[in-house]
Every structure is written in structure tokens, then in C-alpha cells.
């Protein structure tokens, strides 16, 4: 016999965890094995709820004098009876249920985006990204050294960093194996590698920007926000393969983690700035460019702007003096 509708047991997030067809009425729910729908919930009575049609043909759920009662949806108040329409949610004990008729409207079919994910899963992608990271590290070690270097030095310098990246991807793969039963190592490696490439590119870009426009605090702001975004993307990407979280939850988790890191960084930075030090904090990045491309201020302007230093120092001195006994 075809079902009239379905009683669905929902989990805490509202997802369906069990579905029972309603083939005959009345229908009883409870912990006892005599019920048509048996609930494994200690707060539910052995015989808790009956669902039946009334004289007008309405579908009614009725509390069978249970200890913990019947509630509609998220409401607190107990009800003795509840009329069920398609989509009505109700609660007995700690169990959330929903009634759906067979003609209950459905959400549109989701488009499968796993093709993209499979490209990410391809070992060729991982190898490509891995080689890119290696090349970037090698170039960085070559450019940041001012001594004569042999090829073997250039290649061996970044090896510790490479092993850290592999270890990082490995830990995520282990987490994936535990949580979602699959290692997804190439995916994790690709994600970590991409984040490193993005971060290095951002650093180089901000160094050049700060060299060209020293009055702008580019390095400081990119360190704070750019790296924060990359960190969020990294966590979001890893969680995609290491957790069953939905896209929205992953996004929030990633943003919260990255926000916390950025916030801690900003606080440390602020605290360090307030602390006394004899170090002159300036950015002395120099780059080999043709002088004609370089935007520059006049000598007059430089010394006129330096008046701001005096104002700042005067206020620092004033603050320091008022803090001293």
C-alpha cells in the first residue's frame, strides 16, 4: 500500500536522520516495541503519541498523557493535540519530528560541483603545485642570499620548509581519515601549496608597493588582512576534505579561526608598539628600479612632513610624563 505521507526524525541541525512511511492510521509513537514508530529516546514514554484522523478528516497528533509531553516546533508550551500539515514539526522528549505528505514540495536539485573537486584531487595538480612551491622557495633562498651559491645550496636550503608543508598536509590527511574515512592527501597538499604561493606573492607585492609608496602602511595592512584572508581560505579548503561540514559552516569556521589569529596578531602588535624600545622601527626596503619610475616627494615636503614626528613625540612625551610618579 502506498504511503499517505512520512514521519521524519530530524537531527539537531534539522537534517533528516530517519524516515518512516505512514501506511495506516492510527499510528503510535513511543519507546515500546508495540509502536509503529519506535523512538530511542529516554525522555520519550513507552506509549507517548498517537496520530489519527478526526471526524473532519484532519490529521491530529495526540499526547497520550506522557510525562514530558508534546510541543509544536521550537515552542516551549505543551499541547494536548496538534493538527499536522505537510511540513509541521513537533517534539516529543528530545526528539524532533516532521510530518510530510507525499506531495510535499522539494528543494531544487543541486548542481554537482564535484568535477572541480576532482580536478583538485588529481595528483598532477598536487605535483604541479608542489613543484611551484619548491621553485618559489628555491628562488627565494637564492634571492635572499648575498653569498656565492652552488646549485646544491639553492635546492637544499628550502628542504626544511618543504618537509613542514608535507607534514602539515599529512596531518590534515590523517584528520580526514579519522573524520570522513578518506586521506585526501593530494588535495590537502594542493591547498597548503596554493596558500603558500598566495602568501609569498602577497608579500612580494606588498614589499614593492611599500617601496614605491613608503607613506602607506601596506606591509602592516596586508600582513593583517591579506594573510588573514589566505588563512581563512586555507582552513576552508582543508575542512572541505576533512569534515562533513556544509559550505556555510565551513566558511564561518574558517572566518572565525582566521579572525581570531588576525585579532591576536593585532593585539600583540599594538602591545609591542606601546612598549618602550630603543629600536627605530622603519621600513628600509630598497628595490632595483630605474629612478625615473619612482614617485618621490621634494626635500621640502619631506622635512615639512617630519613636523608630524614632532607632534607625535610631544604627545608621547606628555603621556609618558603623566604616567610617571
Amino acid at each position, binding site marked *: 500500500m502506498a504511503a499517505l505521507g512520512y514521519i521524519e526524525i530530524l537531527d539537531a541541525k534539522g537534517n533528516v536522520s530517519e524516515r518512516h512511511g505512514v501506511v495506516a492510521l492510527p499510528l503510535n509513537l513511543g519507546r515500546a516495541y508495540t509502536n509503529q514508530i519506535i523512538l530511542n529516546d529516554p525522555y520519550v514514554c513507552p506509549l507517548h503519541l498517537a496520530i489519527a484522523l478526526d471526524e473532519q478528516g484532519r490529521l491530529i497528533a495526540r499526547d497520550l498523557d506522557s510525562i514530558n509531553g508534546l510541543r509544536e516546533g521550537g515552542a516551549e508550551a505543551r499541547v494536548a493535540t496538534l493538527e499536522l500539515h505537510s511540513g509541521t514539526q513537533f517534539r516529543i522528549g528530545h526528539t524532533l519530528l516532521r510530518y510530510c505528505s507525499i506531495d510535499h514540495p522539494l528543494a531544487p536539485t543541486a548542481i554537482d560541483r564535484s568535477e572541480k573537486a576532482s580536478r583538485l584531487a588529481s595528483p598532477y595538480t598536487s605535483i604541479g603545485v608542489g613543484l611551484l612551491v619548491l621553485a618559489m622557495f628555491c628562488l627565494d633562498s*637564492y*634571492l*635572499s*642570499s*648575498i*653569498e*656565492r651559491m652552488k646549485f646544491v645550496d639553492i635546492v637544499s636550503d628550502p628542504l626544511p620548509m618543504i618537509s613542514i608543508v608535507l607534514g602539515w598536509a599529512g596531518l590534515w590527511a590523517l584528520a580526514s581519515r579519522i573524520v570522513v574515512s578518506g586521506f585526501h592527501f593530494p588535495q590537502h597538499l594542493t591547498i597548503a601549496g596554493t596558500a603558500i604561493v598566495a602568501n609569498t606573492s602577497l608579500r612580494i607585492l606588498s614589499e614593492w608597493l611599500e*617601496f*614605491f609608496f*613608503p*607613506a602607506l602602511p601596506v606591509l602592516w595592512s596586508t600582513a593583517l588582512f591579506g594573510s588573514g584572508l589566505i588563512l581563512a581560505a586555507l582552513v576552508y579548503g582543508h575542512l572541505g576534505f576533512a569534515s562533513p561540514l556544509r559550505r556555510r559552516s565551513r566558511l564561518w569556521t574558517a572566518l572565525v579561526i582566521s579572525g581570531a589569529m588576525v585579532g591576536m596578531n593585532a593585539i600583540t602588535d599594538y602591545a609591542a608598539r606601546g612598549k*618602550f*624600545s*630603543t*629600536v*627605530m*622601527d*622603519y*621600513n*628600509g*626596503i*630598497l*628595490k*632595483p*628600479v*630605474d*629612478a625615473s619610475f*619612482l*614617485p*618621490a*616627494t*621634494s*626635500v621640502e*615636503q*619631506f*622635512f615639512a*612632513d*617630519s*613636523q*608630524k*614626528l*614632532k607632534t*607625535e*613625540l*610631544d604627545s*608621547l*612625551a606628555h603621556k*609618558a*610624563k603623566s604616567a*610617571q610618579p
Partner: protein
Amino acid sequence: MKLINYIAALVLFLTLAPVRNSLLAQPVRATTPEIFKQYSEHVVKIEVVETGSAAKASLGTGFFADGLGRIVTNYHVISKLIHSPERYRIEITDVAGRTGAASVLGVDVVYDLAVLRAERRPKGFLALDAKPIEQGTRLYSLGHPRDLGLTIVEGTHNGLLQHTLYPKIHFTGSLNPGMSGGPTLTQAGKVVGINVATEGNQISFLVPAERATALLDRTAKVEKPAAASFLAEVGQQILTNQTRYLAGMFEPNTPRVALGPYDLPTKPTEFFHCWADAVRRKELPYASVSHDCSTDDYIFVSSEQSSGIVRFFHQLLSTEELHPLRFFTLYSGQFQAGNAAMFGNEEEVTPFRCETRNVSAATGKLKTVLCARQYLKLPGLYDAVFKAATLGSRNAGLVTTLSLSGVSFDNVQSVSRRYLENIKWRR
């Protein structure tokens, strides 16, 4: 026989003549024990005592300069009291071991002198004498080296130091810590200088007596100034003094030195000392040539602060084999090196604040940085570092640094600006 007697008399006369002449020239030739015995009672040990713990915070020497109980010593002996009058007091002890209190009447921070007044009247005093003295004259210095008791040190006068900002007598004798502020006397007991500094190996320096006379004259009518007013006076003396010595520094007529493609300032005045050095080693893929100038003289402000030191340093880096990006790693590193001041604590200075720009100077473009910090107890005085790096070349660069200590902000700006205008490219 007559002739023999005559010759004998002539020989005797000639032999005795020098003795007679010297006896006429120096009728009194006091020995060192006599000098010590005669003058030591006018010399006192000066201790700056922390009021809370009654522990001694600094030690020096001083001497009575008149019958009213005025004592001459060094400013640096009592500088702690000037900076924190509420925390310290002065205690003096004479050679007989009698102690007493003293208060400050006036200071001359530029020449490192102070005049105190003892509470009790002295039995006698030492006279100051500003008359020029011949090089080689024997002198006697009195003081309390390392608190070992009053000591007399013999030495010689070797004239005034050449090329110094503040005149000092070069005394060849061993001055030691604790003797600061003590008198250096002639055999006749006249004070020609006040012990102030030593560079070891018998190289010592004295403040000429006329500076002490000037300070004594200036404070002749002073009764008992408020302790708090001295800091303002110290600040004012430093400001007035620096206006004098910084005024013409780095004007367009400053001597030049060629460093690679650059034409740079060197030895702006006689009181600068300059050195040059070059690093060209086979194992290094670059070369470095440096030129360093600084003033030797400085004004002692406190144990962690000094004023008046001007130092500048040019460093030319060049390479024929490093890739421009690699060379600029080195160049940036050198531009950012040495970015910490040696001294400074939270009670005396603010942290540094810096301004960085790309500047278009008359002959080329430079990256310039100006960092400054303010003195907290001497308002209006700043330490500053001005740095510039030339831009545009792919395999050579010049980092030049000018450091100024304890100067007004106007002087920071004007001296740095004149310095920058002196950095030129050779055409």
C-alpha cells in the same frame, strides 16, 4: 798662584751659577708630601646619597673655592640629584672625616662643572688661577679614586687639547673614577684645572680653571635656588650651546670626499675625526667602502644620555657579480642595519618614531628615513637619526647615516636637510 786662585774662583762661580739662578727663579720648591699636607684639608669627598636607602649612588671630589663654603666639582658627579632632586641628597666628607650636607648653587653642563654650598664654613680654600702655563709644568691632582681615600697624583701639563669643541687641559697623569671634580694644582697651590675625564694610560683631561671662575662669578649672588629649576637650566644651556656649534655645520663649503660615483661631505669642522675603511674580500661577491666621521666631544647629561655627539657614516656597496635583486637584498639589509640606539630607558626618553619617504634631491632620488625620540626630563631636546640610500643604480648604492644627540627639533630638521643637500652624484 794668583792666576790659579783666580781660575779656581771662576770655575767655582760657573759651577754654582745655575744653582743660584734656579734658586732665584723658584724660591719655593714644595715637595709632594708638603703639597698634600698643605692643601688636602680644602678638598672634600662628595657623595650623592639615595635618601630612601641612605646608600651612595655616585662618588666624586670637590674643593672649597672661597671662604663662604662654595665648592667646585663636576656636574656629572651630582647629575643624579639634578635629574631626581626628590630622591637624592649631597653629603660631603673632609680629610679629617667630618661629614656635612651641601646644596647645589649652579651648574654648567657644557663644561661639566657645578658649584655647591657646604653648610659649614671652611678653614681655608684653594685659589683658581687661569694664567697660561708652560707645557711640561709639574702638576698635582687630588681626589678620591674609587673611594680609596684622598690621594695625590703627580703629572704634567701638556697644553690645551687641539680641535675640541670645549677647551680641555691635557694632563699626563693617572686620574681615576672618583677623582672627578677634584683640583689639579701647581706647586704653588694654585688650581689650574678641575679633574674631569681620563682615557687611561695617563691620558687625562682637566676643565680649565677660568670656566670654574666664570661659574663662581655667575652664582656669586645666588642664595638657594629651587632644586627643580636646574633641569630647565641644563636644557637651556644645551640648547644655547648647540646653536653655536651646529650653526654652520654642513653648509655648502663643507669639505668633500669622493666615494665611487658619489660626492659626499666629510670633516665639517676641525673637531670632527674621520676614518675610512674598505672591505674587498675574494670570498665576497661584493665590495664595501666606508667613511666614518664623529665628534669626540660630548656633553654629559646623565649616565644614559649625552648631548652634542654628531656622527655620520657613508657606506658604498657595489657588486659586479650579484643579480640586482640579490644585491638589493644586501643593500636593504645595510639600510636597515644599526637601527637600535645604544642607550635609553623609559624614564628618560620616548620610543623612536620614524618617517620614511622617497625623496627627489637636486642630483638624484633617495630613500630617506628620519627617526627621532624626545628627552622626557629635558623638554625640547631630541635624539635623531637621518638615513638616506641612493636609488636608481642596479649594482651600486650608498647608505649614509647622520646621528645627532640632544638637539632641538629645529636643529634636527635643519642639520639633516643641509646634510641631505650635501649628498651628490659625481657627473
